């Protein structure tokens, strides 16, 4: 396809007003520009192509060549017995559950394969096979080592306990971590990080995953024609695979990334397309893994590279991120966010991007076509992810030659600077933000080096200043008003004193809207949350990282449980999860591991289970009996947030913290009753 093909021939067709497509002004401007330049983007295609109305119900089965069997649920519903069946007899419930399970499998595979890549790099670093990656955060290494059953002390010469060699620890952690993927029996060891009652529940239910790959493969097997034809049994396998993702692959990815690149701590940066600089070499890093982007950040900072850029007439090199790679390098280096998922084509439309470097996941094929309209180079780097459309450059990234590869990529971008055309339009919009809230950082910031703990958070939840915790995450979805779902949900939550933990494209949205600044507390929050934010100096929305870093939210929830006063399990917490604009299969895996970790999790837009009312009811209601958490789908973002708040209030009531707390004054007798000093 040539760039000419991309340009729309038929201008007569009336395009939607950009203001009806996105609430983000920079995005509106860029959509308008793309229209002026006759460049088609996802926003246009979303108008011209409607989603399949059977697929959207989740009841189209194409798992064998006798189909596809399509079992739509009539708008009026079915009165009496539901007699819909596929050729093999699969019911709507079986079909929807199988489709759902395959989404979990794909999502878990995506996260976990990312994790595997990190684990392999980590192993290379531990073996010292690469110069470019080193064990940087030894504190975190020592913290996670015991979870992998790795000793951090050894017996000294005189039988005393001495610190074990850090390289030895790293090597054993690397080997043990990597073994979690191929493990065939037993349990994934990081599951034990969950609060004990949660782990025990999983054990009782028999859903503790055996090995990361195994559970994913088993979904593929079970959903083959004629295998698992019981939606409950299928859901159980979804749980194994999803837990293997959230508490396994994703969590291990986060941990090992922190050890290699440093555990994030709060830092300042900015977001939106306005971060691009007209007089700089602009490089967009897009995708999901930090392995390459970390190297690019280092390479772009090299004086020789900056000099080279200057020799080409630029004033310097500006990096910007899109999607979760953006979040990864923001969290650790403060590299600004250029935009979220739906802005990837539009970043190119500015005409100011020398190179867009991509690795894996959420990279739209069409960027190659858009790039063909400009000088922009699309550089694919991962052997798993190549693009056939348009013109792309493939520079394969190898962890053993990582830095050299990164330099080549940056150089490629610099060399491209003189090819930039005059017609450049960079939107003005950019907002300042504070990011970098690992659960360790939250712990520190709630009490410093000496008193760091989650107790102040719990305390203010108990006393009602903070009503609860909302985890709002997930993608963009071109079927809904861009960024509006995210912002409406988040603003309604913080207005009602619910503190928000965010990752992924929601975090980028919040960043662009100024919700990641401490100043936003006074503007958007209820009085209680505002007061707490003011005391700690935090934004009301805490950016915890990429979508793999949803594991940080799990750990934060676990820390809250451990800090006490809010029940014994994640399901006791006044908390709820949300993905207002989800679209990827990863979101389904994330949703399911949150639900089965005990969290009420609401999705926006749609959920492909509507054609199977029994299965839908199982997910939305019956799972609560089993896991204490359940799925829900509310398309309207305001109602979406209200349902989360209602759930939080339900949990507050169950904990008995729905009433004002009395001040307890201790006398001597009370003090004598105090338990041990700690």
């Amino acid at each position, binding site marked *: 396809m040539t760039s000419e093909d991309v340009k729309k021939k038929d201008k007569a067709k009336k395009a939607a007003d950009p203001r009806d497509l996105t609430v983000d002004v920079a995005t509106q401007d860029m959509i308008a520009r793309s229209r002026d330049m006759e460049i088609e983007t996802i926003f246009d295609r979303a108008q011209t192509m409607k989603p399949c109305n059977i697929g959207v119900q989740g009841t189209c089965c194409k798992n064998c060549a006798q189909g596809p069997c399509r079992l739509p649920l009539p708008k009026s519903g079915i009165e009496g017995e539901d007699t819909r069946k596929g050729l093999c007899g699969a019911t709507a419930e079986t079909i929807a559950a199988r489709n759902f399970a395959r989404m979990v499998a794909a999502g878990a595979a995506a996260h976990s394969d990312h994790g595997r890549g990190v684990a392999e790099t980590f192993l290379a670093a531990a073996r010292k096979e690469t110069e470019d990656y080193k064990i940087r955060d030894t504190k975190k290494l020592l913290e996670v080592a015991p979870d992998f059953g790795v000793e951090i002390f050894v017996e000294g010469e005189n039988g005393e306990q001495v610190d074990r060699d850090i390289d030895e620890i790293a090597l054993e952690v690397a080997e043990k971590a990597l073994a979690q993927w191929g493990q065939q029996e037993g349990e994934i060891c990081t599951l034990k990080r969950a609060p004990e009652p949660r782990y025990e529940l999983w054990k009782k239910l028999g859903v503790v995953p055996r090995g990361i790959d195994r559970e994913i493969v088993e979904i593929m097997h079970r959903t083959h024609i004629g295998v698992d034809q019981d939606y409950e049994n299928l859901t159980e396998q979804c749980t194994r695979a999803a837990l293997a993702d959230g508490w396994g692959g994703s969590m291990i990815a986060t941990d090992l990334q922190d050890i290699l690149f440093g555990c994030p701590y*709060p*830092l*300042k940066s900015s977001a939106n397309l306005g971060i691009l600089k007209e007089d700089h070499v602009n490089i967009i890093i897009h995708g999901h893994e930090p392995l390459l982007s970390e190297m690019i950040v280092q390479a772009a900072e090299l004086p020789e590279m900056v000099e080279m850029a200057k020799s080409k007439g630029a004033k310097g090199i500006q990096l910007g991120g899109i999607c979760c790679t953006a979040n990864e390098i923001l969290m650790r280096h403060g590299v600004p966010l250029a935009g979220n998922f739906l802005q990837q084509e539009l970043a190119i439309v500015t005409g100011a991007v020398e190179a867009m470097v991509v690795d894996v996941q959420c990279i739209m094929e069409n960027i190659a076509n858009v790039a063909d309209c400009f000088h922009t180079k699309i550089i694919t780097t991962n052997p798993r992810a190549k693009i056939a459309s348009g013109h792309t450059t493939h520079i394969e990234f190898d962890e053993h030659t990582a830095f050299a590869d990164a330099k080549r990529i940056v150089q490629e971008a610099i060399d491209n600077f003189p090819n930039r055309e005059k017609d450049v339009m960079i939107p003005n919009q950019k907002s*300042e*933000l*504070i990011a970098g809230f690992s659960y360790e950082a939250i712990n*520190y*910031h*709630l*009490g*410093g*080096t*000496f*008193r*760091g703990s989650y*107790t*102040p*958070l719990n*305390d*203010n939840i108990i*006393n009602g*200043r903070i009503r609860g915790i909302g985890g709002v995450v997930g993608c963009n979805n071109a079927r809904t008003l861009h960024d509006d779902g995210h912002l409406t949900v988040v603003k309604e939550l913080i207005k009602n004193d619910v503190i928000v933990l965010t990752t992924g494209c929601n975090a980028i949205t919040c960043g662009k809207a100024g919700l990641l*600044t*401490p*100043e936003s507390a006074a503007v958007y929050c209820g009085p209680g949350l505002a*007061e*707490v934010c*003011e*005391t*700690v*100096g*935090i934004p009301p929305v805490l950016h915890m990282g990429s979508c793999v870093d949803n594991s940080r939210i799990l750990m934060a929830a676990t820390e809250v449980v451990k800090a006490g006063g809010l029940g014994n399990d994640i399901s006791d917490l006044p908390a709820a999860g949300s993905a207002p604009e989800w679209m990827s299969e990863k979101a389904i895996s994330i949703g399911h591991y949150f639900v089965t970790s005990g969290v009420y999790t609401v999705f926006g837009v749609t959920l492909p289970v509507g054609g199977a009312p029994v299965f839908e009811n199982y997910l939305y209601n019956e799972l609560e009996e089993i896991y204490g958490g359940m799925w829900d789908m509310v398309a309207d973002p305001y109602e979406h947030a209200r349902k989360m708040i209602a759930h939080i209030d339900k949990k507050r009531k169950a904990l008995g913290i729905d009433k004002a707390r009395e*001040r*307890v*004054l*201790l*006398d*001597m*007798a*009370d*003090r*004598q009753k*105090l*338990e*041990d*000093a*700690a």
Partner: protein
Amino acid sequence: MSKLVAFAAIQGAYNIVSKAEGKYKRALEKFGGAQKVEFPNTAYFLPIIYSLTGIKVTDLDSARRPLDFARKLLPPHVKKDCHLPFLGPLLDAGMAALFAEEIVEAIRYVEDPDFYQPSVEDPDVDNGKIWLGAADDTIMRKRGVEFVDGTAPGFAAIVGAAPDSATAKKMAEEYQVKTIYVFMAANQSGTTFAEQLLEENVQLGWNTRLVPFGPDISAAVFALGFANRAGMAFGGIEPGDYKKMLAYQKNRVFAFVNALGEVNAEWAANAAGCVNWGFPTLADTDIPEILPTGVCTYEHVVANVEHDEMPSRSIEVRGLKVTITEIDIPLAYGPAFEGERVRKDDLYLEMGGGKTQMTELCKMADMNEIEDGKVEVIGPEVKDIKKGDRLPLGIYVQVAGRQMQEDFEPILERQIHHLINYAQGIMHIGQRDISWVRVGEQAVEKGFSLKDIGTILHAKFHQDFGSILDKVQVTMYTKQEDVDKLTKRARQEYKHRDERVESMTDEDTEPFYSCTLCQSFAPNHVCVVSPERTGLCGAYNWMDCKASFEINPTGPNQPVEKGECTDPVLGAWQGVDDFVYKTSRQAISHVNFYSVVQDPMTTCGCCECIAAVLPGANGVMTVHRDYLGETPSGMKFTTLAGVMGGGQSSPGFVGHSKFNITQRKFIKGDGGLKRLVWVPKSLKEEIKERFQKRAEEEGMPDLLDRVADETVGTTEEEIMAFLKEKDHPALKMDSIVGG
């Protein structure tokens, strides 16, 4: 608004650390790195640094590490817009400031050795020496016990100065009434709270619980250091275990800061430091408040507090409940006034004390015999005499109640001392027929009469012992003949009682009593008190524990069934072991009552004396906490207490009361009193009379003369010659360690 506090405090912390670095550099140049650095007579190095980091600062060289650490703790300054989170950094800045200040104060001891007065409880005001600085360990342990038993629930760290001295006095008195210590530091434009109190003729010092630490804000470290030493001494918290230490402080030490006058950046840094301890700040000025809870139990910073509300507001913010004794007398009343003296110049009326006879007697009465609340003064009252007069005095207290027993009489009688002492302007010394009361002029001006003593005793007996008595009647005699008559009768009663208590033995007494009174401070320790092994704090004997149990059946003293005696010589009972195993949370499975060598009893660190085995002398030494010097064990009292406090059983060491030395079962399992080879001279003096009796029972009337003391030597080698010369019996006994 918190941002302003954070901004100022972090700024202040930079100032403090920078100044400390400068001071350190100059000291290093002047004195050299080997210059010793210490808080005199304390065993905890620089206690904040030591307790939280484990770093032992002993000289200027070793002070560098914590100072570098303080510098490293300093966070970036808070930016105006889109700033980073600051609560954690703010607390770190506060901690950095305190580390730096502790080093600054330690250097002051080197530069100006006479600035502070480490070993006295009350300042030498007449010579213009107001500031006490760090309390030495003797004071810390003595006062720490008050925190342990709850007579002092906490302290108010007052920094700055009140708007005028009258306000200062009013505040101080309210804290005294509320039984809370006042620790003073810093000045407001040169005026200090301490000097304001002196202007108002208020007595300062540990005895009145108004402790002037120092004139600079850096003296705040003495208050926090005191709290942390208590945590190490009584809480058994390991140095360097900062998490446990700070949790201990938050949960058990009810302290807070009152900032009086303008709060500058350095004060803000100190306040931030205190938040690490869970100690909030209340200010009388309009500073930014920090109200959300979390690090402290409730609010962190409260502003604009009126002075007359400051004490009550402070204890509420700290989450403390103080029950104030409201007694219908014209004087302020509370434990803080116990240590207050009535000086000669202020003396209005004196009774007893060798000049006249004064006698106290408490007797059980029949319910119908007495009238509750009846207080009678037979003879001259205060109004009948003039300033400087003396009177004899007999205080006869009759109590009746369904639960009352004769055994409780001495316990009630012993209360008279402190109950009278609690009244402001009244001083009481001694007991029984050697009592002594001084009434100050100010008390009389306020309208005090002798009848008030009766009112106090009636009210307090009901309050503290309400469950064993129903009626209290007090009669006071001030005519010579009546006093003589009472005295004669009382002496017979005393004799009868002493004989009864003397004759009680562990063998024929059941049950023993536990004492967990100090578990609020020493959670792992439990005492078991028997008739022949009184509580190691010296405050509770078996009878006290029994009475306490009767008064409060679910209280800290519980009966312990002895069960089978498993070792009569070492003093071991199955029931006691079972009890100790349970209450020590399975840490201790077996204890011997009468041995220092084998499985001795545990101590919380508030023992009066510590006995230690001296293997070379084949004997045992003991040392009381008032003795500051070295001992032949190679350790001072405070070091010994540090080694064995916190609820451990440490073979070779045991805590005990002074009285216990002269009880028959004292280290009987190791050979008894004849093992005693070294005792400080002052302790010898104190227990001489009873020791003599016991020595005679042991068939060695001159035993005490054979026991060495510090005048002989403070090493085993030094005392050996003496012991040989005196032919000390321990030398011929079986080997104490090999046994």
